[in-house]
């Protein structure tokens, strides 16, 4: 597996650049993905999405469907895309340290 380095921290990533171990997740990882995703400023709402994804993943071992993300955060789909332009299944999951969702994604 490849290693990426950002802000002095090393991260093991999978073939698609998703974090290999959620335990390695931290602010440096978030900053790394932020640049990749072209997000200029992280807001409280970005964090709300990230926290929700992590909580769900820790309980269920898989990323939630967007409907659940929207229900828990109260955000409309359009707004979720404003926060994460590459989409909830890609950019948001990546930033939250979740693995790349399996299947046709």
């Amino acid at each position, binding site marked *: *597996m490849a290693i990426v380095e950002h802000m002095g921290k090393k991260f093991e990533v*999978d*073939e*698609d650049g998703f974090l*290999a*171990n959620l335990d390695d997740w931290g602010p440096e990882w978030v900053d790394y993905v932020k640049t990749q995703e072209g997000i200029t400023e992280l807001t409280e709402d970005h964090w709300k999405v990230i926290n929700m994804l992590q909580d769900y993943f820790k309980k269920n*071992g*898989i990323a939630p*469907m*967007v*409907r659940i993300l*929207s229900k828990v955060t109260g955000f*409309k*789909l*359009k707004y979720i*895309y404003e926060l994460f332009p590459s*989409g*909830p*299944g*890609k950019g948001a999951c990546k930033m939250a340290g979740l*693995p*790349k*969702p*399996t*299947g*046709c*994604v």
Partner: protein
Amino acid sequence: MPEGTLCNKNPITTKEQLDALLADKTGKIYYEEMKHLEVDTEKLAETLQATCKSRIRTWLEICAHCGLCADSCFFYLANQKDPTQVPAYKIQSTLGEIVRKNGQVDNAHMRYCMDVAWGKCTCCNRCGTFCPYGIDMGVMFSYLRGLCFSQGFVPWELKIGSGMHRIFRAQMDVTPEDFVETCEWMCEEQQEEWPGLEIPVDKVGADILYTCNAREPKHYPEDIAEAAILFHIAGEDWTVPSEGWDQTSLTMFAGDWEGCRLQVEGIYRAIEKLKPKRVLGTECGHAHRATVIEGPYWLGREDGRPPVPYLHYTEWVAEALRTGKLKIDPAKRIKEPVTLQDSCNYIRNYGLKEVTREIMSYIVEPGYFVEMEPCKEYNFCCGGGGGLNGIGIYRQWRNIGFKVKRDQIKATGAKLVIAPCHNCWDAIRDMEEIYELGIRWSFLKPLLLKMVIVPEHLKPKEEAEEEE
């Protein structure tokens, strides 16, 4: 017989098994166990006896090793004409060997078969169109996948995909309730802009029953909303089934033959229950192949057809444009060089090449549509078909294979690629991420929504008044 806890010959049938496999991120333990998985040669011989009929045996025997298939394969071209990438070599050294040895092969051979069947072939069937004998390597590789799956040699993600189908009757963990709720949610979110928008569920006798790809409710629900809006504008009488709504088949990609049958059975059951005049599938290539082209045979339907006519999304779009159900505002047509990705599964393997060109004639300003070279039935696979997009261990092989499509797109000079197939869409997205071509890519639905003329009575009241 050393069967792994995660990697073994049994398909996933319970949520617990599925969770355990998912927890093994990227399949670390799974692939380690695979190295020790014993081949049940007796069972393999029995499977061959029961399923490897004269067609495949003849194809393997009559192959003259002429090499005419070589240049047809994008993997061969992208890998500096590596002889081990010649389709004839790939099939002879894998399935050919299994058949010649009547299943007496070892673990190393089965792992080699897996690497070739999933990592060096996307079952795009392009080679078959150049073989002087008409040998269909795509069919043979699909068959090889079935043999590999039956022995437990299948990429981790596709073992998961097959399990998802068996548990959820969908390639992702989306239940019928989740699907219906997502449809309702999408309608709610659109009410301001599209008052009265509905997604009728389980309506009996509708003109159209619409089936989609599980990724839509799971990760991209806007796709469902867009489909609904276009039906709304076109004034269609349509519905979605609460069960049997996922048209895709990772079971087909996985070579899980029983799973293939179960999946299509669920969709056909919905058709028989809801009695629509026609069924329409989303902008997906492999779903069409699984449900419309191959599905009838999996279920032993004598006429080789689904219970009622089953259209690909492009067929409906072309028809709606032709009949004026959808009218395009000429001022909003695409006015930049634009190209089209022909999906192997419904262009080469189902003949819809003129249907997609007809759509282009409506949505692209004359003079701006640029064909890829080659195109239509001779077009190259996007590079990520057959499940390859979703398989981590072959990621580098896929990315090398992308070079052929990348160069095709580059040569058109277009910065917009229309890709009415999820797999192609994903491949082109990933290609852009890797090779930075500076291109955009799109399904048809969002493009249509930008240029379709909205009838006055469907506009929100204030907007309609403002225009007056």
